[in-house]
């Protein structure tokens, strides 16, 4: 974990309102794992007051170069409000105060033979780093052509990183809600289609995207008993586990482990507890998560 100022090497709009920013950050690049995030202070002043979390999107050259100046980290972000708006205006050459890498990262079972990575919208951000890690790791069995990537987006021009995944040798499928590219429908629809063609043995599903998408994927994988890891979001304070502001409800292993009533009623006290998205996550097992959050 490291905090300090790093130089902005690039900050480009790669799709409408989506930017990719590259940072000169050897301290992070050497340490960061897919699924972890950076906590970024977008301004020096107090507006906004808090840092903003962004997933590690790509760790450049990590495995290729020794020169620390080339050990860069990228984030991919969407303009969602004030903070990301300010970030999108930051200039190349300026310094950015970052804290990271934070969080737990994705878990990569050594015996995994097939991986499905499902991205909804900007949720693609951590999955590219994940594909990178899977493909470049020597410890894993899984081969790049057994890494299936589903990229879901509203429309063609919002489909992100298709080329990048292909370069890594992944099997890439695209879903667009308006049918303007690839499968016409959501990433979940395409996922179901893909599942019907695959062997479930030694398969792991990884997903990041809007909560409704993650919830559906959790239902599917739970039914089919496929292990699934989801990267979640939530309002973040400290990012390091100290403020307890980023709570997410999870089923207690001791408890009966069932979801709370659909009417939004309370679960039994003994059946759930809160975890910290920043420290215990942001990657959670699909089975843990209690979905009827407000």
């Amino acid at each position, binding site marked *: 974990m490291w905090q300090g100022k790093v130089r902005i090497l690039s900050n480009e709009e790669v799709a409408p309102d989506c930017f990719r920013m590259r940072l000169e950050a050897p301290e992070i690049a050497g340490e960061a794992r897919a699924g972890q995030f950076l906590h970024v202070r977008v301004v020096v002043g107090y507006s906004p*007051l808090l840092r903003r979390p962004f997933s590690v999107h790509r760790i450049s050259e990590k495995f290729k170069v020794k020169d620390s100046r080339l050990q860069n980290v990228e984030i991919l972000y969407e303009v969602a409000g004030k903070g990301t708006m300010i970030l999108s205006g930051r200039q190349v050459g300026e310094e950015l105060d970052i804290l990271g890498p934070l969080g737990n990262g994705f878990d990569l079972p050594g015996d995994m033979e097939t991986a499905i990575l499902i991205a909804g919208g900007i949720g693609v951000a951590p999955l590219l780093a994940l594909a990178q890690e899977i493909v470049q790791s020597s410890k894993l069995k899984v081969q790049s052509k057994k890494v299936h990537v589903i990229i879901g987006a509203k429309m063609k021009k919002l489909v992100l990183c298709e080329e990048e995944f292909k370069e890594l040798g992944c099997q890439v499928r695209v879903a667009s809600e308006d049918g303007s590219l690839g499968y016409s429908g959501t990433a979940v629809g395409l996922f179901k289609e893909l599942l019907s063609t695959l062997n479930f043995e030694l398969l792991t599903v990884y997903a990041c995207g809007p909560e409704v998408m993650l919830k559906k994927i959790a239902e599917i994988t739970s039914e089919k008993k496929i292990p699934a890891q989801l990267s979640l979001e939530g309002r973040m304070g400290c990012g390091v586990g100290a403020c307890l502001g980023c709570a997410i409800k999870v089923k207690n292993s001791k408890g009966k482990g069932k979801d709370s009533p659909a009417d939004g009623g309370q679960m039994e006290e003994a059946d759930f507890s809160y975890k910290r998205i920043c420290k215990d996550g942001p990657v959670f097992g699909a089975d843990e998560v209690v979905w009827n959050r407000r």
Partner: protein
Amino acid sequence: MEPKVNLSVKVAGIKMRSPVMVASGTFGYGEEYEPLVNLNQLGAIVTKGITVQPRKGNPPPRIVETSSGLLNSIGLENVGLEIFIKEKLPFLQRFNTPIIVNICGEKEEEYVHISERLDKVEAVSGLEVNVSCPNVEKGGMEFGRETGTVRRLVSKVRKVTKLPLIIKLTPNVTDITAIAQAAEDGGGDAVSLINTPLGMAVDIERRKPSLANVTGGLSGPAIKPVALRMVWEVANMVKLPIIGMGGIMTAEDAIEFLLAGATAVAVGTVNFVNPSAALEISRGIEEYLVKNKIRDVNKLRDYGARWKK
């Protein structure tokens, strides 16, 4: 090089190498920030509020930003007294920095129980009696809004422990000086000013409160003027030393509190923004003293004592 000025202070008998502490609930149990901050350089570490039993805390969303502020409704999530002693204290103990345990309860008996128990725990340098948590249904702030309840609670706790007692007050009162006086009358050794003013934010798209618990405590630069005013008022009316806090982000902010009458300060929300803030603020205070040829940080509070309305 020797420091040219004295930065050390003594609050409620607790000696600190710097007047800059970290505020309860914003620094976890210390371990979360240890990779980033040299804990040996802090004035003191105040832990997250501890209750007898573990508490889950409130449902999310628990935090939301406001202009220059942060609303939180954590709901006193904590590991509970015994786990704290067994699993959290040993880590903190490794550092050469006073550990002040923030304690809270729904009933007087709980405060008494915790104090009695911690009295015997060597690692603990003092107790911060939290009669000001705005985010729990029972207890917390309810004890801190009337002089009678404050005096009674403090004197009960006083009876069971010799540990320094710092009473942490809520700003959600008509007359903070009366409450501080009650803390003194009950046998408190110092007061912490301020906990968070109760606030709220509304999500106009969903037409619901932004926090699941509707209201929350406001912290950050937004509350600094109110905190400073209360520190100055209490400094001028009550004898107890004051730990000033509320919106401190920079050394300049901290110096405002010290001039207004605080003996030490605590930094809270700024830890989330800049984990090294406490250490940077401490250095900034030192530079200010050097620049202004003030030999001892303890001289600063003489200024506020002279201001008259």
